[in-house]
Structure formats: C-alpha cells, structure tokens
C-alpha cells in the first residue's frame, strides 16, 4: 500500500470555550492547523482514494502537552489524515528551516517511504520542500493544484511565462514526488472534514543533528533599513490579495477579506496563503512582469506597451484610468459575493 505524507503548518490560537476540545481548560492556547494545510490534506485524501494509500500528517513543532497533541490528532483525522506523526522539541519552536526541520522530514521519509510528500502553501514549504526533494531524488512540483478521480490524479502548475503549464499524471511517475501546493481553501471546514474521525497518533523522537545549525536571533534593526517587526497580516481571512503599484489609485480601508499591497516592488511575503492573488499591471511595465509567478490573475490596466501574444491562466486587458482601477476593483470585490471563493 502506498503512503502519502502531508506536512502540517500550525498557528497558535485560543481555544473556544465551547469548542470540541475536551480536556484542556477553556481559554488554553492550543495549536491550530492552517487553512492551507486543510487544503493540502483534502487534496492528499482525494489522491489516497485513487491510490488506496494511507495519509500521514506530520507535525514538527515546539513542545506541546499531550492533550494538545491529542487535539491535533482529532483535527487532522477529520481533515483527512489516517495517522498523525508528531515530533515535538524546543529546536522546532521557531521558523521552519532546513537546518532544524529537515532531519525530521528525512526521518519520516525513511520511516514511511512516501510516494508523495505534500507541503501546504506557506513559509515552511518555501524552506523545506526543495531540500527534501533533493534528498529523496524526487520529482519536485511546486505551486501545484490537484484533480483526482478514482482512476487517475493529475498535478498541474503554471510556468513563469504565464503562457503554459506543466501537468503530471501521478500514476505514470516512477519515483517519489515532493509537492508544494498552491494556496487554496478546503471545500470542507476543518471541523467537519470527510476524513476518518480518529487518526492514530505516534510520537517521534527528535533526531540528533550534527554540526552547527542555523538559529534565529533578534538583532536591533538597522536605522537605515525599513525592516523589523511588521503588523501581522491575517492571511487566514484574506481571500484576495491585490498587488498594485502606487500608480493605480489610493484606497482606504480594504473590505474584509481583501488585502492590498500598493508597492511598486510588489514585495510580498513568502507565505502567501490566500486563494486569489491579483496583479494590476500598468502601461509602463514590460510583459511579463516579475510579479506574475506570485499571481493567479493579471489585470493589465491601460495595457502595457508590449501585449502578451497568447492568453494565459487569466489575463485581462482593461482600458481604464489608472487612478480609478484599484478603487473600482476593491469596490467590486466588496459588493459581489461571487468574488469570494
């Protein structure tokens, strides 16, 4: 029987007083599974039906009490996992990077020999997926979307030119695959997923790491730099992110679920989680702009000087006044429920 592994991304939150968390006191801080992870588990479950595979959810995290681990096993079981592997250690408390989390992934890969190893969209995927693929000599498939039936499953991803894509028939691949998922929302909520109710929980020992290890340190911000702590973006609540240069008009407070990055550098964080990323491209930008690999759709306002010769995933041209474009799009997303996936 084939095995499928899914890396689990967590973020901490308060337990709801009347939530389904028997055992921990109300208000206790419990780790919660990200929406992107639910999406990855849902995709893994669909493929598991096709392959007759066992789905393993892998949690690599800082120290957690047993009730919290049992809670995770219940949540992940409902989300689609058959078994939950947990490695809990202080070394895993901070930003997931290959130096600290890679050995855990290697250990799990040796233990279960997964045919597919999924990473949900997020910071962990950006750091961990490619090194694991190299270690396993696997096919590496980032930015993936999945379509599965009981007889077949396909993986697809857009190429940077936005005029083509790569498609893989999963049954025809003769080696392991490491799949970094595109961002997406699960069809079912985490609490009412279609997976088996009780996932088997197994606790793994943290492997010995040899040699010096990269570690996170807090350093004073350089006064000449604009870095430092930023207000966190509520990515779990964002359904559409708009990447707009500063020439596309100002917008006040964006409506709920819409996040606007008005920055000519299109600087977006590594862990983009929202399902739709929309890029506004103005007339001064050559095609294709560097931002496109991060975007799901591009709206060319007042059309660039060089138009794309072929269509792509979603490319739209719109003859509008640049200053009016962004406010109009934000308004349409706020008023039209079809704009929310």
């Amino acid at each position, binding site marked *: 029987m084939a095995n499928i592994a899914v890396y689990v991304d967590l973020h901490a939150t308060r337990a709801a007083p009347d939530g389904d968390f028997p055992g921990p006191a109300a208000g206790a801080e419990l780790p919660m599974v990200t929406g992107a992870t639910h999406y990855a588990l849902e995709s893994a479950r669909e493929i598991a039906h096709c392959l007759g595979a066992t789905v393993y959810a892998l949690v690599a995290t800082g120290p957690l009490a047993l009730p919290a681990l049992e809670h995770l096993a219940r949540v992940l079981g409902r989300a689609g996992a058959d078994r939950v592997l947990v490695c809990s250690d202080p070394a895993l408390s901070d930003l997931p990077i290959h*130096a600290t989390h890679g050995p855990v992934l290697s250990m799990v890969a040796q233990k279960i020999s997964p045919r597919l190893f999924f990473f949900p969209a997020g910071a962990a995927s950006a750091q961990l997926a490619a090194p694991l693929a*190299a270690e396993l000599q696997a096919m590496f498939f980032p930015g993936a979307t999945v379509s599965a039936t009981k007889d077949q499953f396909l993986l697809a991803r857009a190429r940077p030119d936005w005029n083509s894509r*790569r498609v893989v028939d999963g049954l025809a691949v003769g080696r392991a695959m490491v799949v970094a998922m595109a961002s997406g929302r699960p069809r079912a909520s985490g609490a009412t997923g279609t997976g088996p109710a009780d996932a088997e929980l197994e606790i793994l020992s943290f492997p010995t790491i040899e040699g010096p290890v990269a570690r996170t340190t807090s350093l004073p911000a350089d006064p000449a730099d604009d*870095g430092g702590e930023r207000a966190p973006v509520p990515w779990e609540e964002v359904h559409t992110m708009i990447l707009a240069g500063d020439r596309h008009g100002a917008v006040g407070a964006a409506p709920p679920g819409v996040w606007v990055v008005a920055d000519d*550098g299109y600087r977006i964080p590594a862990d*983009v989680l929202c399902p739709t990323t929309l890029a506004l491209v103005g007339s001064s930008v050559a095609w294709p702009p560097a931002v496109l690999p991060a975007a799901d759709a591009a709206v060319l306002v007042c059309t660039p000087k060089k138009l794309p010769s072929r269509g792509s995933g*979603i490319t739209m041209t719109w003859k509008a006044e640049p200053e009016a474009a962004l406010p*109009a799009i934000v308004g349409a997303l706020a008023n039209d429920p079809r704009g929310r996936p």
Partner: protein
Amino acid sequence: MNVVICLEGPVPGASTRAALTLAQTLGRGTTLIGLSATEAAGGEALQAAIGARCARAALVSDPVLQNGDYLSLATALAAAIRRLGADLVLMGTTGASEGTGAIPAAVARELGWAYLARGESVRVADGPDEALVEVRTSQRIATLRVPLPAVITVPSSAPPGRRRTRTNLTPPDIEILTLREIGIDPAELRRNDPLLGELQEWSGKPTSISSAQEMVAAIAARTPGGRG
C-alpha cells in the same frame, strides 16, 4: 571570502538578478564570482555578472546539460563551485524558465552545505564562519545566523540595499569549464526525463473587460482548483 553567484542562462530572471544585486552589498573582504551552467557558451547571464563587478566569471558548458534534470544540473554546479573555492553561494529563489526553485537546494545537498531560502539581505557576521540573513514571513522579518559555507536563495522581491564600491577596473574573461575538468563524466549526467511533467501551452488571447465587476465574475468563473 569567495562568494559565487549562480546565474541561470541564457537570460537571468528577476530573482537571479536580485541575487547578483544583493552580492554587491557584501563587504570589501568578499570576492564575487559569477557562475553559469548551460548547454552552450554565451548568453547574457555572465555578461550581467561582469557588469556587476564580479572578479571572475565561469561557465560550465556541455551539451548533456540541455536535457538534464535539476539533479544533474546541481551536480555540475556543485563541482564547479568546489573548483572555484566558494564560501557562500547566492542563487535566485526561482528560475525564469520553469520557476521550480529546485536547483539551489540540490546544489546545497551535493555540497553538504547549509541551505536557506528567500534571504532578503545577507551580511557577513563578525566571525568568518557565519552569515546574518533576513527572511520575511507574513508575521515578521526573522534574522538568522547561518553557518558557512552555505547556499542562500534570494527572492525577486528582495530590497536593493546599499551597494559597495568595487574597484575592478578590468572586466574578467569568462573561464570555460568542461565537465571533465571539474571531475564529472558527462555520461553520468545523461537523463531521459527532465522531471518536469508534460508541457501544455495555453491558447487564446487575453480577455478584454470593461469593468471591475466583469473582472470579478471572470475570476469566479475560472476552473476550480487553481490557476488556468
């Protein structure tokens, strides 16, 4: 300290150019070396390195690299990096052609070096054995001490930083390295499957819209499950 910047050929993409730009912010104690691997000599990649004041520029050239997968290309690059004597390798997070970002991690594994992705700034620490690297997430900017030698990738969105003045007055010649010269038998890198999947090109033209409402409807109407 020798810093190798791996440049995809023939034309470097945005994140590769960001890596080259970031390399120029490193201190005066660093020597920049541009490295590219391709099936044919030439291309803009190493010209960009020379323009960015790299002290050396090297090219691994062999026809077998044309159909290789990311693992074979990483093997070739790692051997060249050993030959050049690097302490730090900077690469773009994703390439312009396929955009997988697989090669840097594979290069790090071949070398047995530390690996960190999406470093937006890199500074050499007080000691010679560490680099300070900033990584941006949605929650914060984390600064990490990374032991050297290391492979660090740079995203296209990395801020430009302050460039150091380099006084290379003579542009370097491009050193051509064959696979055999760097200790690799070309036959070992021949691959039948580039591990990319089937290429499907989209047809049609961009959709013309006349309002934001049309745009919202077009996005909502796309195939469920993602792009295209």
